[in-house]
């Protein structure tokens, strides 16, 4: 192994704490950022920033679960249909693995079976007027959803066709809590974007104070400190 490759293998990427100037070992920042997206706070736990990681995890996941609870578990779903495009899911996707079931359910509903992957319907996009569903899923909805009745389906062997609009039903049932749940879950996903950045680059520095207190040469030195070879 050449000295250059030895040096690169020992390369250590650190950030500087804005509080006490201590070095924060970011380990592999890209991997940490991926972990932070996967589960909020996991990237920080990987970097050894355990208290911060635990705090991020508890805050973001609590917000997300609270939103799901307020929205009766209906507010996180992926739908790209012309009459029901759920743009909020772009923000929901920021939460990582917790939003993945929505994608699976959406893909499964548009598949040949016309039923969700998890038949219980967790994170399933709402049924639209005229949508075909499997008989098993239709029966399950009739039995479990107080807003859906047998008469809400036409018989279209081997499927059943929905003749109402489930989004309207959800809004009628939940009222403002549908928007409130959406807001909570969207904010959880968006805040996790900041957490991902923090795992990738370390804490942000107050730029205004730096400009007042340091010269341009100091700034260059600070930039050099961000990447140390040790």
């Amino acid at each position, binding site marked *: 192994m050449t000295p250059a490759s030895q040096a690169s293998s020992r390369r250590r990427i650190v950030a500087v704490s804005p*509080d006490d100037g201590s070095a924060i070992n970011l380990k592999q920042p890209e991997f940490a950022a991926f972990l932070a997206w996967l589960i909020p706070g996991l990237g920080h736990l990987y970097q050894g920033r355990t208290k911060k990681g635990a705090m991020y995890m508890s805050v973001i996941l609590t*917000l997300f679960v609270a939103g799901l609870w307020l929205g009766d578990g209906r507010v996180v779903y992926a739908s790209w249909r012309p009459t029901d495009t759920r743009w909020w899911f772009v923000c929901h996707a920021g939460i990582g693995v917790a939003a993945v079931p929505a994608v699976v359910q959406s893909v499964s509903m548009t598949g040949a079976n016309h039923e969700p992957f998890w038949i219980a319907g967790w994170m399933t996009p709402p049924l639209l007027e005229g949508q075909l569903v499997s008989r098993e899923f239709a029966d399950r909805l009739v039995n479990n959803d107080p807003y859906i009745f047998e008469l809400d389906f036409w018989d279209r062997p081997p499927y059943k066709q929905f003749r109402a609009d489930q989004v309207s039903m959800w809004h009628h049932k939940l009222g403002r809590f549908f928007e409130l749940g959406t807001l909570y879950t969207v904010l959880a996903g968006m805040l996790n974007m900041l957490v991902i950045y923090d795992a990738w680059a370390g*804490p942000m520095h107050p730029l205004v104070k730096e400009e007042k207190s340091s010269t341009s040469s100091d700034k260059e030195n600070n930039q050099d400190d961000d990447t140390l070879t040790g």
Partner: protein
Amino acid sequence: MDFGTMILFALFLENVPMLFFSLPLIAAASVIFSATHHESLSAIWRGTIEWMIWLIGILGVVLLAVFILSRLA
């Protein structure tokens, strides 16, 4: 109290639950904003208080502006 003010006051009371539900959002956002600017826990908590004051202040001013505009309309 005239009728218009009573209506506005009733609308405000109707929205109190929504204001209540916005507080956890402000708190969570403040914690995350602060944590992305600090590393030590004590500094994070101090920053959280600062961010909460800022966010509540900004949202309060927006609410006040909406209230005043609705009175003028």
